[in-house]
């Protein structure tokens, strides 16, 4: 009898740092007990011992192998308990799972990334991956929207990107505050000011479902082809193995066939935006 890995067993990882990103969002820096690597856009199941686990796409660089960063919004039972964890605690990791961003297909192209809210977490990992191969890319433009200026995560990222050759980053907020002097409006408005080389561009959309929907519609209006719009879908990925059924979206298991899909792959699938 052949012995294979137990697919349900988590790998332990030590929590070494907890970074406050916004009132509801923290980044957990983890050192797995065994070698662990992932492709950008793939996700992991992160667990709190004895409590539960939830799917997250790591927000760190896929080229850093000794540690892993996961950005978590406090939004439910498990994430609330995660937010109370202190450095030194052990968490469980399963994965990496699914199909991430096919960065090799971006070679020679302009990559336009539209992100909203906590969707910047997987995008940050993608940005690190793209920085790694920037010689092979034409240009990378990030357009990011948050509800308020305070809800924006990774604030230093924007300056850093704007000082990086071939990278541009823009921000908007839905609601301004006293200190904010940037654009106000939904994230798709940032696209209006930009010019695209449509023959040579691809779009990446990641954020809350409503933003993904209108972001995709906007890219289609601008003239992006369906197969050049990459969406990172959010469903209730529970096992990550294409078995438990919770993330079924039409005939797809989002955990295995996704979470990254091109729009043409899923445009006829029901309930993609909810």
């Amino acid at each position, binding site marked *: 009898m052949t012995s294979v890995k137990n697919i349900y067993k988590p790998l332990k990882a030590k929590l070494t740092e907890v970074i406050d990103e916004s009132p509801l969002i923290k980044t957990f820096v983890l050192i797995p007990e065994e070698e662990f690597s992932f492709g950008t856009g793939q996700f992991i199941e992160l667990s709190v*011992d*004895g409590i539960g686990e939830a799917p997250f796409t790591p927000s760190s660089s896929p080229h850093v192998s000794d540690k892993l960063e996961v950005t978590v919004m406090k939004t439910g039972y498990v994430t609330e308990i995660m937010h109370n964890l202190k450095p030194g605690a052990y968490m469980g990791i399963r994965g990496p799972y699914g199909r991430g961003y096919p960065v090799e297909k971006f070679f020679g192209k302009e990559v336009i990334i539209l992100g909203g809210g906590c969707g910047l977490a997987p995008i940050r990992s993608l940005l690190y991956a793209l920085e790694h191969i920037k010689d092979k890319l034409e240009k990378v433009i990030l357009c990011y929207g948050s509800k308020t200026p305070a809800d924006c995560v990774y604030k230093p990222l924007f300056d850093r990107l704007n000082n990086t050759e071939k990278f541009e980053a823009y921000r908007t907020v839905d609601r301004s505050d006293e200190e904010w002097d940037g654009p106000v409006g939904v994230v798709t408005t940032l696209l209006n000011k930009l010019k695209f080389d449509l023959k040579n561009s691809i779009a990446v959309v990641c954020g809350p*479902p409503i933003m993904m929907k209108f972001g995709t519609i906007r890219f289609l209006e601008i003239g992006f082809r369906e197969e050049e719009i990459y969406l990172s879908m959010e469903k*209730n990925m529970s*096992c990550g193995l294409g*078995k*438990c*059924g919770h993330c079924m979206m039409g005939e797809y298991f989002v955990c*295995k066939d996704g979470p990254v899909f091109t729009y043409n792959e899923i445009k006829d699938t029901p309930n993609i935006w909810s």
Partner: protein
Amino acid sequence: MQYLSIIKEEWDKAIEQLLLSYTIFASVESEFGIDYEIVNPANISKISYNKAKPATSLKTFFLPVKENVTSGTSLKRQRVIIGAPNCDIQGLKILDEIYLDKEFSDIYYRDRRENTVLISIDCLEKQEHCHCTSYGIKPWSDSDSDLAAIRNGDLIILRVNTPRGQEFTNQFSVVHDLRDENIISEIEDAHKKAESLLNEANKGLPDYKETGAIVKNAGGEIWKKYSANCVSCGACATICPTCSCFLLVDKPGFEKIKQLDACQYPGFQRVAGGEDTLHKLPDRFRNRYMCKYVWKPEKFTSVACTGCGRCIEACIGKINKNELFLELAT
């Protein structure tokens, strides 16, 4: 097709002998109907042959309702299951596709499959809701169980379906090659009879190839109508030989308990942010049909509904999916 024969009395004795080396389960007839029991010397004579079908589906032996999948022990000792009907045997195929896929093989499922000798029965009678033949499944197995056992008067006839089945019969000193052509043709006639019984009873029921388009194109009204009596108990999915969705529950020590789940339960697809695509009952109800007749057939080669009819029997709301299909087909 290789057939062996053994006198029923000897067969019962042989099963008793096998209890020394195997755990044996069999479908047993009682005043409550037919269902699986663990075999002991007292119930060997009550093992059911030639009749459809145990109340519980075969899935239960391979996907327990609840199991620890991090530190639980997998099945290492050989076991024997007698009495599985072909609908359930065929139901294992899609479970194999899901649980033994190349990338992520479930070791607990794999060990149970590898260590189980499957002895099927031929259904020579039908139950009220049996409709396997409508979905391209014969009421007997001639390839996917290891052996098939048929009662013929004072004899048990064994059809050898696999090399493992062949090897298994080597343990019996009292089996003989069946040379009586009359018995073989009796069995073949009984098969034909059973098939025509099923076909006759399910006249007009769309076959499996047609069901997908029918479900896909059905308007919202039919799901509202048929889900009106649904109480989201999940009995249809629990008893189904191919429904295999589950939930992982965490226990201290990073242990995971895998527990059968069902898309008919509220909250099955709810995400942390609150979105729930299956929040409304008619949507959940429709989801099970879309899964079985539209999505799974696009993804897997094996059928996701074997026509066993148990979901109809188990439903406390008396929802009959065959009535739904007949209504949609006409």
